[in-house]
């Protein structure tokens, strides 16, 4: 069977990108191989590890569980969009300050989930619990990541940082 292809246009970090790709291409592979955006990491490729999490129309999801053709016409945000001027985002800076990464493999996915969590106004407890629960980190034991989330949330408007978990 010959591989079917389609033309796909996705706004990636604000730039419209058009490529012809096989319909079976995963969004994660489209970003990495077609667009060269290798900041989105591919770990388990079945939705468990969370390393490939990106925002599609603002919604965090696993890019390894979506086809690139499904994102045709959508706006995708990846880790490369967080520091366009070469200056770290506040969450990235918090991760650096709190030693929230070691090997860094899981970090891009966590940063994207936290960006969406910040925008959605979720509490610090929920960000440290339910949201971070969707990411597997094999280096840090999560202590540094949680410290980074607490640091970032503490800098948010008062009501959001209040219920800080230990």
């Amino acid at each position, binding site marked *: 069977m010959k591989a079917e292809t389609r033309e796909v246009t996705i706004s990636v970090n604000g730039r419209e990108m058009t490529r012809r790709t096989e319909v079976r291409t995963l969004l994660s592979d489209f970003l990495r191989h077609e667009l060269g955006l290798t900041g989105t990491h591919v770990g388990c490729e079945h939705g468990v590890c969370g390393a490939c999490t990106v925002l599609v129309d603002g919604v965090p999801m696993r890019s390894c569980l979506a086809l690139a053709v499904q994102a045709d016409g959508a706006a995708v945000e990846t880790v490369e969009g967080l520091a366009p001027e070469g200056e770290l985002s506040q969450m990235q800076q918090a991760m650096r300050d709190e030693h929230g990464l070691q090997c860094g493999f899981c970090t891009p996915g966590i940063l994207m989930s936290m960006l969406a969590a910040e925008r959605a106004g979720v509490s610090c407890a929920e960000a440290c619990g339910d*949201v971070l629960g969707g990411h597997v980190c094999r280096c840090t034991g999560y202590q540094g990541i949680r410290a980074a989330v607490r640091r970032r949330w503490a800098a948010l408007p008062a009501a959001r940082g209040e219920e800080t978990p230990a």
Partner: protein
Amino acid sequence: MKPAVFSYLDPRTVEEALDALGEHGDDASVLAGGQSLVPLLNMRLARPEVVIDINRVPGLDASRVEAAAVRVGALVRAATVEKDPALADALPVLADAVRHIAHPQIRNRTTIGGNVAHADPSSELPAVLAALDGAVVLRSAGGERTVGWEEFFVSVFTTAREPEELVTEVVFPVRPELEFRWTEFARHHGDFPVAGVCLGLDVEDGVVRAARLAATGVGDRPVRLREAEAALSGAALGAETARAVGELARRAVDPPSDVHGSGDFRRAVLATLVRRTIDTWPDRSQRGQRGTAA
């Protein structure tokens, strides 16, 4: 791994989707949230010739709260069910159960229709459907039918859906006389549970007037525990009833052993969940204090 080669169709109306299913049904997989199908494609455990993506089909992503039932469109996302105040008001157990599905990043995509159509024997919603005596609406080019949960869930990953049929709606009856709770045990939040229980009780002055009990993870499909229900009916809430009914639940199922635990382990977890849920059931005088998890 990567998916094997397939043809991709993205119909823009229900009719187009049904035509595609009519033509390719036997060789096609329906792609909704993709949180179960795409892993299967990636691992090549599923190799459909055609993938029919229904995400661009309008009209399947709405929920309706009616007097007798909550009707959830097949494409409604789990995350939407979690946050919908009308659904929470009409049927709080639905959101309680949904919150146990995986993680927020997955629930943003997971669909109610897909979850039910996938028929994972450890999934939450099939057991909720069983407890409520719910149903699934199936549509094909030839017409529409509503299939009760007992007929719909046939076996592991197997339902009564014909190849040319599309799940369009899941019907969760509202039973206002009963108060429902969801309890499950998983090794890690977000994993499929070892066992999960949906219990509905109507309690008056500490005595159970009516009961509904269904479980997941303890068989090849969701089960209603009717003997346990019968024993609950008319019984006084308390430790003795809780233990006796838990024991009945244990004896009613015979789950196979697998990598997650032996069959006996699953039965023991089920008995404990049932016992604990009954044991911690708030009586009417404490209704204002609901929310303490079992």
